[in-house]
């Protein structure tokens, strides 16, 4: 690490990486856990508050009011009303859902009584592991192992129906922000996606022939902007222009819009509302009193257009200003074409598990309440002996099933927000610890995978330090699926009340007190808070400075960001959730605040990373604020920009993601090798280290720690029918061969309950449905589990084990994306050996290097060799590592060639090889692709029912297809008999009877069309051909076969 000077210079890279080890590994899933905690402790209460009261149309006196809502601890219902706490591991084993009851306190009326009931369950919430309500929080490693849980497991996922599910981070364009954009024709427009708890809407501002229009879903056609202004109560043209801006070119650009309004003869608010009322798209009426068109238009302006700007009692002031700013932005952008960049990461927000679940829960909760209301409306009018008691009608399964189904299928469909997303959740990949961690940091984008766009896929400079530059899949999802960097943090929503107060105290002038012209004053900056205009400020520098000082002092939350945008002349304050931020060392007077002492304290555990934050040594910056700061990459660079307020970058390795950190010496590679880097990120998830400290207790696929020792696979059998009889033939440690029966299950032949009265006498009939072992090699039974799942269905799980040695065809890889298949296994005496008598384990062809440029592998070998001789480890992450020169010196010291090339003798002849061989240790992994799982051949076997052709695929014992290209080869070669054999005789040859007279297919020597058998002859054609003829016939097309004798 040649660039770390000064104080950092004394520290080894390992020391610098210390915070990564302590904070980051926890921090990688911290965002998920934080956001889930926020949801179940805070957000869920807000949702309840927003929907707290249910009334009935049938009885005005009746109501139901929620007083409080809680999420409990995970438990399982043993029998009716008996529950006990459950551990996550039990859920995994028994295919249950790790969930906790949601209980509410309610107040409602029964007859004339008012009743308060506490702790009523309304459903169950799947609980994220290691969240505040999980049984694992705050447990010691000892207690962890008592629960059969791995203390190293990061948590952050759900267990739903026994499967571990991760809710991927979703990337979205940020809400409530004005984005000025250019469409395909080059015309500029502005759009805002507003989102509040109740509503979501999108408002567009477009330009047509020099005039400005507002476009919205609820308006049947584009409405001239001036009319909207008038509808909102700004009737004077002067006021409109004042708000938008009084500069010459701005006024000139806006004039045509005013003119249009004039032409439409609209001068007052009433006229404008009437005009708009005619354009409102009719919506389905939810009952209630009918509104006039004008009222409807006013309602629309107040609540649907720019939803996020609050309108109290039809005071449209703030909304007018917002609209004016939108118009002004568009006008200004037209001149110099400075449109916003959609891919800029400051404009992106990440949705985490908590946010997604809160959307889902809110929807389900509303549905639940609507259902209760419907029941109340139906039952109250009817006279009954017992009074209507709503508690009896509260069903738990709606919310429970809604949550479980969404997480287990990954389909998030919320009708209210027109949201229909697939693949939100994924099964946690447990191939290795790294792959599990990598999954937690994955971000999926909303863009369609199939679309060929380069913008959202390419690496944005603003992603620097926030997202991993190398870990993204190849192929269609390239650049759309991203990964978080090590130190990135994602914010959660924060209260903005105190921030508003602080801003006003710091000199921000409230927007409601302004006349409008101030917005465009050149000396004044607009202040936004989470997309809403707060007011204006004269001395923006002072505001920003004081704000930051307050934040460092801990008076405001460390994740509130403030940044100035000089081009738009704005100050943006953000406290919303989903922003990406990362820590920086604060630099004062050219000196970083963190020094050696602090780092020592950190490594010895006297201080934590949080202490750094509290003491104002380190602060979190989000993408927008980064733009506003001067950031030194390394310490020696600070002096160049020496100013008061700079931010130093912390450990360079924080840029990368977890998996990428496992590639040694990555830095030395040229940019061309970056594909290999991606591959290794992928491949880091393939290989085979153990994932938990309790592999023995799990019954799911796991890979053992020794790369080429063994692999496990699993089989699982569930008996569903209640009368099922099972015999397990095998106990642990037993060996099973192909086709041996694992579970000898039998099942009643009649599974439906017989109709009443027709009860069959006698014993029920059973048929055997054994589950047998399939596999080309024998397995050992590692474990057998007999249990029942949540529905009390009988459950047997059998864990099988195979010991595999490397064989020809197995795939191996070094840590540089250099994969390869084992081609030959040579006995030791035939292997070449070096002067010390060592013979290599693997011989690799050097032609693998030039095109792939994996210099890191060369260095790994060299440093590994020197390390072995020295008896110490070398450091080789992407950001530093031992220098080649020093390593070479080490080699020379031990009497080896400085290039790492050895004199090698052939083991076959005993004579030396003509070249020196680059010889040394390299770490190799065995990848999960093994010949044993892939080898396949078939002579005869199953056929598809429809076409009678051989089945497809190894799992169905299918045939190997002679495809079009292979067929072309045979045609070209003229091997007609071979063709005939491959395409018909070995595939789906079929004897048909064809009538020579009518040319139609007959049946057993008889033509049904001609009612005769005299011209019927028998041919062999492919069954698929016969099928085609029949299908054509069914479509009223008659294919006739013309027959003639081959010798005529």
């Amino acid at each position, binding site marked *: 690490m040649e660039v770390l000077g000064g104080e950092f210079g004394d520290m080894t890279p390992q020391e610098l990486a210390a915070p990564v080890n302590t904070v980051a590994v926890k921090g990688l899933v911290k965002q998920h856990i934080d956001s889930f905690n926020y949801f179940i402790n805070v957000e869920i209460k807000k949702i309840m508050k927003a929907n707290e009261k249910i009334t009935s149309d049938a009885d005005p006196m009746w109501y139901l009011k929620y007083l409080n809502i809680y999420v409990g601890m995970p438990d399982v219902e043993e029998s009716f009303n008996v529950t006990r706490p459950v551990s996550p591991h039990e859920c995994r084993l028994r295919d249950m859902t790790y969930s906790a009851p949601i209980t509410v306190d309610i107040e409602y009326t029964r007859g004339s009584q008012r009743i308060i009931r506490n702790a009523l369950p309304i459903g169950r919430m799947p609980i994220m592991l290691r969240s505040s309500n999980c049984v694992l929080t705050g447990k010691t490693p000892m207690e962890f192992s008592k629960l059969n849980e791995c203390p190293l497991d990061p948590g952050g996922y759900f267990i739903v129906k026994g499967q571990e599910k991760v809710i991927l981070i979703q990337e979205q364009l940020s809400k409530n922000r004005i984005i000025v954009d250019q469409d395909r024709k080059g015309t500029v427009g502005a759009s805002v996606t507003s989102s509040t708890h109740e509503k979501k809407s999108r408002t567009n501002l477009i330009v047509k022939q020099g005039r400005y229009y507002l476009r919205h879903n609820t308006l049947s056609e584009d409405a001239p902007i001036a009319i909207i202004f008038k509808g909102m109560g700004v009737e004077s043209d002067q006021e409109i222009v004042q708000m938008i801006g009084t500069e010459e070119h701005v006024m000139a650009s806006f004039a045509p819009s005013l003119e249009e309004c004039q032409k439409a003869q609209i001068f007052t608010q009433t006229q404008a509302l009437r005009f708009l009322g005619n354009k409102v798209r009719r919506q389905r009426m939810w009952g209630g009193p009918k509104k006039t068109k004008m009222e409807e238009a006013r309602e629309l302006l107040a609540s649907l257009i720019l939803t996020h700007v609050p309108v109290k009692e039809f005071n449209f002031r703030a909304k007018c200003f917002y609209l004016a700013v939108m118009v002004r932005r568009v006008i200004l952008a037209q001149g110099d074409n400075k449109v916003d960049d959609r891919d800029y990461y400051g404009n992106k927000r990440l949705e985490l598990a908590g946010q997604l679940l809160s959307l889902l829960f809110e929807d389900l909760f509303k549905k639940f309440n609507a259902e209760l209301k419907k029941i109340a409306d139906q039952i109250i009018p009817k006279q009954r002996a017992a009074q209507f008691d709503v508690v009896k009608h509260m069903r738990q399964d709606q919310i429970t099933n809604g949550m479980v189904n969404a997480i287990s299928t990954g389909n998030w469909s919320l009708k209210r927000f027109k949201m229909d997303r697939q693949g939100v959740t994924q099964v946690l990949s447990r191939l290795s610890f790294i792959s599990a961690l990598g999954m937690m940091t994955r971000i999926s984008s909303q863009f369609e995978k199939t679309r060929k766009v380069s913008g959202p896929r390419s690496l944005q400079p603003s992603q620097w330090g926030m997202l991993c530059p190398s870990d993204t899949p190849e192929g269609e999802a390239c650049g759309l699926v991203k990964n978080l960097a090590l130190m990135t943090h994602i914010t959660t929503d924060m209260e903005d009340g105190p921030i508003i107060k602080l801003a006003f105290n710091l000199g921000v002038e409230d927007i409601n007190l302004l006349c409008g012209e101030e917005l465009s004053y050149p000396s004044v900056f607009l202040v936004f808070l989470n997309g809403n205009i707060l007011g204006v400020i004269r001395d923006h520098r002072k505001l920003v400075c004081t704000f930051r000082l307050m934040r460092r002092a801990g008076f405001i939350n460390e994740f509130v960001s403030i940044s100035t945008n000089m081009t738009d002349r704005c100050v943006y304050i953000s406290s919303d959730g989903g922003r990406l931020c990362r820590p920086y060392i604060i630099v004062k007077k050219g000196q970083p605040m963190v020094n050696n002492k602090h780092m020592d304290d950190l490594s010895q555990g006297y201080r934590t990373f949080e202490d750094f934050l509290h003491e104002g040594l380190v602060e979190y910056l989000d993408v927008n604020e980064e733009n506003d700061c001067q950031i030194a990459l390394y310490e020696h660079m600070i002096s160049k920009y020496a100013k008061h307020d700079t931010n130093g970058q912390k450990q360079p390795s924080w840029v990368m993601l977890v998996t990428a950190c496992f590639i040694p010496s990555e830095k030395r590679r040229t940019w061309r090798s970056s594909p290999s880097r991606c591959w290794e990120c992928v491949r880091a998830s393939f290989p085979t280290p153990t994932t938990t400290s309790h592999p023995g207790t799990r019954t799911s696929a796991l890979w053992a720690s020794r790369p080429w020792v063994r692999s496990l696979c699993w089989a699982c059998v569930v008996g569903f029918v209640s009368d099922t009889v099972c015999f397990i033939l095998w106990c642990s440690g037993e060996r099973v061969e192909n086709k041996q029966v694992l579970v000898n299950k039998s099942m009643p032949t009649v599974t439906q309950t017989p109709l009443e009265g027709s009860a069959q006498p006698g014993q029920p009939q059973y048929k055997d449905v054994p589950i047998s072992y399939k596999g080309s090699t024998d397995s050992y039974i590692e474990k057998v589990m007999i249990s029942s799942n949540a529905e009390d269905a009988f459950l047997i799980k059998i864990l099988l084990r195979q010991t595999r040695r490397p064989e020809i065809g197995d795939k191996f890889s070094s840590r540089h994306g250099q994969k390869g298949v084992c081609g030959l296994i040579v006995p*030791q005496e035939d292997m070449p050996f070096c002067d010390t008598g060592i013979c290599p384990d693997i011989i690799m062809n050097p032609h693998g290097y030039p095109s792939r440029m994996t210099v890191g592998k060369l260095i790994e070998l060299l440093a590994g060799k020197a390390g072995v001789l020295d008896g110490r480890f070398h450091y080789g992450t992407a950001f530093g590592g031992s220098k080649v020169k020093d390593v070479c010196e080490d080699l020379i010291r031990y009497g080896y060639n400085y290039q790492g090339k050895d004199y090698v003798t052939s083991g076959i002849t*005993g004579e030396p090889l003509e070249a020196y061989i680059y010889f040394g240790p390299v770490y190799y992994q065995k990848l999960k692709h093994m010949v044993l799982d892939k080898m396949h051949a078939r002579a005869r076997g199953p056929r598809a029912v429809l076409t009678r052709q051989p089945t497809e695929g190894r799992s169905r014992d299918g045939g190997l297809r002679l495809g079009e290209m292979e067929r072309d080869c045979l045609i070209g070669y003229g091997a007609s008999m071979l063709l005939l054999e491959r395409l018909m005789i070995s595939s789906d040859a079929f004897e048909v009877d064809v009538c020579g007279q009518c040319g139609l297919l007959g049946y057993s020597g008889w033509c049904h069309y001609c009612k005769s058998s005299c011209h019927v002859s028998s041919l062999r054609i492919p069954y698929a051909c016969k099928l085609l003829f029949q299908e054509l016939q069914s479509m009223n097309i008659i294919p006739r076969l013309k027959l003639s004798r081959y010798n005529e």
Partner: protein
Amino acid sequence: MAAPMSNVEEIRSRVILGEFGVKNVHTTDFPGNYPGFDDTWDMKRFQKNFRIDVVHLDENSMEFDMVGIDAAIANAFRRILLAEVPTMAIEKVFIYNNTSIVQDEVLAHRLGLIPIKADPRLFEFKNTEEEASEIDTIKLQLKIKCSRNPRASKDSSDPQELYLNHMVYSKDIEWVPIGNQADVFADSCIRPVHDDILIAQLRPGQELDIIMHCVKGIGKKVAKVVNSRLDTCSREVLRHSDLKNCVKLGRVRDHFIFTVESTGILPPDVLVTEAIQVLMAKCQSFLSEMNSVDME
């Protein structure tokens, strides 16, 4: 050979270590290959040139120089030492009980790698069909159970102190004599060569109950043969340009340095003699094959 006469001696006897590669790697002194040299095989000359100098010899390792012999023959010795000297090794593992976390097949593999101190010359090769008998099989037993140490202090967390028998070492393997083995091998007690090979770790309640059969076999690595002592050939001189042209690195073609490291079953000198005998036996059988072909 087009090489000038002055070079011929060098080509014949030296392997040249160049900067970028090794030259003259192959043996070229075949009869008639070089004009002016008589390369026909001559027993007397061979006897004159050939010598073996034992540099070092102890119980487990030995080092000797073999000079004046063709690379192919020297290599044959090396290969035989590596692969064809018979030894006794655990071949069959009967697991009666294994409640440890080590899987049966992994445990069996680990056991198979333990060298057993038994002289293979005193045993016959086992015929696969037949039952194990005293002349071809050694029976070993490993029976151990882990338990809590009743005398461990209460707050201890050290497994060494907490448990008894929690580490299973090769010394726990016992020899069970079959037939008259107890008398025959009374003095050369059969046991693993090393006592401190860790086989498995146990926790209280776990136990191993295993019977092993050792048979005579080949193909197991017993020795390591090495070819160099004097110069490690780092070729460091070639990096300095001023020296590059003055120095020529060479190796004597027919000088072989053997380092034989034994696993301890047999002393290394015995191994070498065994190897020579194997080679002789092979030559004998080859000669007899040749003769029988001639007959036909």
